[in-house]
């Protein structure tokens, strides 16, 4: 058995302070990231592939390095530890703040292990992060060294693959797999490895629902499958589930409901890539008492929910006790080129060399590296 050593709470709080109290956020020094990753790994070793979680809990979809929008989520949805969070993966790549995003999530997980839950997305992988930006970002922010990238991607291998909520809802990043009929088949996987190109583990993070088919079909992504109504009905029936919640696909409105709420997509990166103009959401699950009141699963559910939060017409296509809390890009993202505030990207708080504990590292930190072509 690995003996896990823990990091003192005060140190974790200090890391949180670095990330949360500065604008732009301060990245954590490499040694700190290494220690955080190591500690979290030892803790995740004992976590099953599918975690058993309970409502109430808020489910968050893709973030993709949009750090300010993650903070926005804590603003609108409450911050840990007062709100429980399940993150569905895709924390990194594409955005500018992947390092800060994953650092914050790791720290929060260590600080509030019973309040914050992270599962693995298709971007939590060495191959994908090399292709879609996280690797480049690390080189740029950590002085050309890929150490932090290897520690974090090693940690990714330990993330669980899914979760059940109240035993009734199955949550994963992507979708279902033709090789998997039982949750137990997922529980039996040796997950501590890079995501393979195919098989159950790959399909869980790559697949998408498709309302035009009934069965499985190859995915145009080149990995995973499209799955239809029959597939999800059978899977839910065989595993005593009522619903699958997943992320993985950009939704203009921030969420999509398939098959009357049988499957939900939650997307949490507003104005994706600074230009898609889409909304984002988090899914707040208050309870899962579907049988207690008036039976029908997707009908009127306003009775035992907070007033005003859920409308009886259920326009969101969710189950009782569920609510998509929709939000748009955080004000930080709107400090925009018209107002001229950041036209030149000049941030007055760029001075890292404070007198604090981490200051010495940043003082030594040279300019970013991706301009090597030009020097």
């Amino acid at each position, binding site marked *: 058995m690995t003996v896990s050593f823990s990091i003192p709470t005060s140190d974790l709080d200090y890391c949180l302070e670095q990330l949360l109290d500065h604008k732009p956020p301060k990245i954590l020094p490499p040694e700190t990231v290494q220690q955080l990753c190591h500690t979290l790994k030892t803790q995740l070793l004992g976590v099953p592939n599918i975690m058993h979680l309970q409502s109430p809990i808020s489910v968050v979809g893709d973030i*993709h*390095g949009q750090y300010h929008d993650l903070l926005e989520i804590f603003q609108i949805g409450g911050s840990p530890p007062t709100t429980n969070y399940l993150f569905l993966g895709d924390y990194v790549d*594409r*955005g*500018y*703040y992947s390092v800060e995003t994953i650092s914050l999530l790791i720290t929060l997980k260590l600080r509030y292990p019973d309040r914050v839950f992270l599962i693995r997305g*298709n*971007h939590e992988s060495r*191959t*994908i992060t*090399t*292709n*879609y*930006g996280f690797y480049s*970002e690390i080189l*740029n922010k950590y002085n050309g060294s890929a150490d932090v990238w290897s520690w974090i991607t090693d940690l990714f291998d330990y993330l669980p693959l899914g979760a059940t909520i109240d035993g009734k809802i199955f949550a994963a990043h992507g979708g279902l797999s033709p090789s998997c009929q039982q949750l137990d088949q997922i529980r039996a996987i040796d997950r501590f490895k890079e995501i393979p*190109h*195919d098989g159950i583990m790959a399909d869980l993070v790559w697949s*998408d629902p*498709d*309302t*035009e088919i009934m069965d499985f079909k*190859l995915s*145009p*992504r*080149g*990995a995973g499958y*499209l799955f239809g109504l029959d597939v999800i009905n059978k899977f839910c029936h065989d595993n005593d589930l009522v619903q699958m919640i997943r992320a*993985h*696909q*950009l*939704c*203009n409105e921030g969420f999509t409901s398939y098959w009357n709420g049988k499957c939900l997509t939650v997307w949490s990166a507003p*104005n994706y*890539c*600074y*230009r*898609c103009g*889409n909304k984002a959401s988090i899914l707040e699950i208050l309870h899962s008492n579907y049988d207690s009141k008036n039976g029908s699963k997707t009908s009127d559910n306003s009775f035992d929910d907070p007033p005003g939060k859920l409308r009886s017409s259920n326009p969101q296509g969710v189950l009782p006790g569920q609510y998509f809390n929709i939000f748009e*890009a955080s004000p930080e*993202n*709107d*400090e*925009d*080129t*018209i107002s*001229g505030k*950041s*036209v*030149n*990207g*000049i*941030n007055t708080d760029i001075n890292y060399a404070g007198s604090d504990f981490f200051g010495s590292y940043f003082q030594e930190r040279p*300019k*970013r590296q*991706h*301009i090597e*072509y*030009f*020097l």
Partner: protein
Amino acid sequence: MSATGPTKKIFDQSDLASFRRSLAYTGLHQVLGKVIEKVRSQDVPSGYLDATLVTRDGVRAITRTKLEGPIKEDVVADSPVDSGRTPEDNHGPVFDGVIALFDKLQGLIDETPPLKGPRRFGNMACREWHEKVKANIGPWLQQVLNPADNQSELLLELKYYLENSFGSQVRLDYGTGHELSYLAFIGGLIDFKFLDYETLTGAQVLALFSKYYDLVRRLILDYNLEPAGSHGVWGLDDHFHLIYILGAAQFSTSNISPPVSQVLTGQMVNTYKSTNLYVNAIAFIFKIKLGPFNEHSPILYDIHTAVHLWSKVLQGLLKMYEVEVLGKFPVVQHFWFGEILYLWKDRQTGRELPVNPRSDDKEDSEEVGFINGTRGVNTTRSNISMTAAPWAMGRSQPKR
């Protein structure tokens, strides 16, 4: 020898070594060099770049007050096929013809409005536009170039590179590979004297590229072509690279160029966006992206904080082009090779280079591939952008 036009030769990462040895590779570098030489110290002549395409709605009024001299203020917005362009109108029929061709292609966009409804990326109307282009471009090009009878194969190849420069009909995306294809087209026109390199002016070259870029930007905007570059914010630009090279070349030897460090300011962008392609490209980013520039475009931002000479900028962009465009399999796999313009032959021995087609790779158009890195692919139903697996890049669907 068959009159089928260019064919695919790059099937896999290992074919890049052959590509680097090919006459085509040398040819592309020569064209790039020729074009750069021409545009040094030159401005895009007025009347060719449409400022509204790179300006946000709502700030248009400001942009019109710039010191532009003879620009015809209201002509630029519409199809400017008129006398307002340049003082010395002695261009030659091919130049005029190609410029007019772009107006026709723009016209096809007007005729093919994007489909309404809750679709976001890659509007399907773009496929229709591509269909219309395919149906027309052959005769149009024939008319413009008026080739000799024995040049039908050449025409076919030129047509291929031009057609391929407007983005992918299948994936509804656009990237640096398509931009490269346009360079190849221009190179063909120069090499076969449709455009006489000796008399061709830098202003003309810039006009030819300006019309092209404006067309592509309309495609991107009107049909919402795929946004995501493979590295997200960690790439030079979502769509373009060559445009920065040309613009930097324009500035690189000029005494009156703005300082590199000031080009990201609103004032400089407005001053130069209609005359310099680099600034024009920056203006387009400002138009389509929200948020701090250093976040959504960190590489460009760094260029402007760390580099001081335009010649250095140009040099760096060229090095980067070599690696990130010509050296990237996902990009150049879509560059095809013919019998006349860009040859898949060893530049030293003149021999055919090896071709290793993969059995499951017959149909390029079926690919879930990528240009400029990661274009996502579209779902069957809702047309929503998504990430594809890198190991599936440039392949048809994996066999299972």
